[in-house]
């Protein structure tokens, strides 16, 4: 089974049925898998804060949401995370492509990578880092934890996890 299939299987098993995405090369397999699943309403966003608004609405309407995005989005979404997702206490698993880590070919991506964990820590967002494919075995528990505590939770997936670029 591919790692993308395994990830989306865990999402579906945890009742996730509303997923918003912005495009990403590394997460492309997961996004294709999300699009293919009849259990999931897939709604691409133009920007990640818009996606978090959609997820907030879907959660209040009775769905279990998830956002798939790159770590650069942390810079875009701090206000939304703080004043919407956290202030109103809503769960939001964030499956994040951790650009700018080992194997990264684009220098500019490193500029955001060096701030990613510090920003997440500053925001008190529980953060998990998938470096080896075995790490994804924790996804099921992370998703259960997210919907238990009603918080945004970050799952960083780096290039080593995805097997390079």
């Amino acid at each position, binding site marked *: 089974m591919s790692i993308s299939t395994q990830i989306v299987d865990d999402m579906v098993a945890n009742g996730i049925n509303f997923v918003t995405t912005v495009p990403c090369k590394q997460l492309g397999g997961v996004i294709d898998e999300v699009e293919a699943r009849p259990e999931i*309403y897939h709604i691409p966003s133009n920007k990640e804060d818009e996606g978090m608004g959609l997820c907030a609405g879907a959660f209040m309407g009775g769905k279990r949401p998830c956002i798939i995005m790159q770590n650069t989005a942390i810079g875009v979404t701090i206000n939304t995370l703080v004043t919407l997702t956290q202030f109103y206490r809503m769960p939001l698993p964030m499956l994040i492509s951790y650009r700018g880590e080992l194997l990264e070919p684009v220098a500019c991506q490193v500029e955001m990578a060096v701030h990613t964990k510090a920003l997440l820590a500053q925001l008190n967002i529980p953060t998990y880092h998938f470096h080896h494919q075995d790490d994804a075995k924790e996804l099921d528990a992370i998703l259960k934890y997210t919907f238990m505590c009603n918080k945004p939770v970050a799952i960083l997936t780096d290039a080593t996890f995805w097997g390079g670029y």
Partner: protein
Amino acid sequence: MIRSEILKEIAPILRPHLVVCNIGLPSQEMHMIDDQPTNFYMLGTMGLASSIGLGVALAQDKTVISIDGDGSVLTNLGTLPTIANNVADNFILMIIDNGSYGSTGDQPTYAGKKTNLTDVARACGCENVVEVQDKDTGAALEAAIASKKMTILVVKCDSGNVKVPVITKDPVVIRDRFMNAIAS
């Protein structure tokens, strides 16, 4: 008419439906005029009333009306293509277009200058875009609800504000009673 006069007039039409109220004065005015558990008040996060409303509409069957502003739609202009391409026939986006950022002191928006949000919404692919003058809002809103077609309602009105108290309700209380109203 200014926004608060419109909201006062359409409050009885809004009452049976789910309403997502934009940040700042629109939320404060709705809270003062006709506080209902079916109202979701945004206490922050400018620009996302349309996204939150679309999310609620896609998740369940009850009619959802997002009360947005021209300035907030300009802040999150990417929302219009998303709405156009994810049709929820129980969703109405009502843009109160007074050409100004009311909550911050009525600074002019580009929607009050060259940019026409009705044309923008149509260009983004939205199929039912209706522009009305303030006094016709109630009739247009009733027609949009009855049509059971996703509608973008652009309400042209005057800028101006009335004095309203800030909302001191806890956000979790606002969210919880809104979710209970949806589930009931």
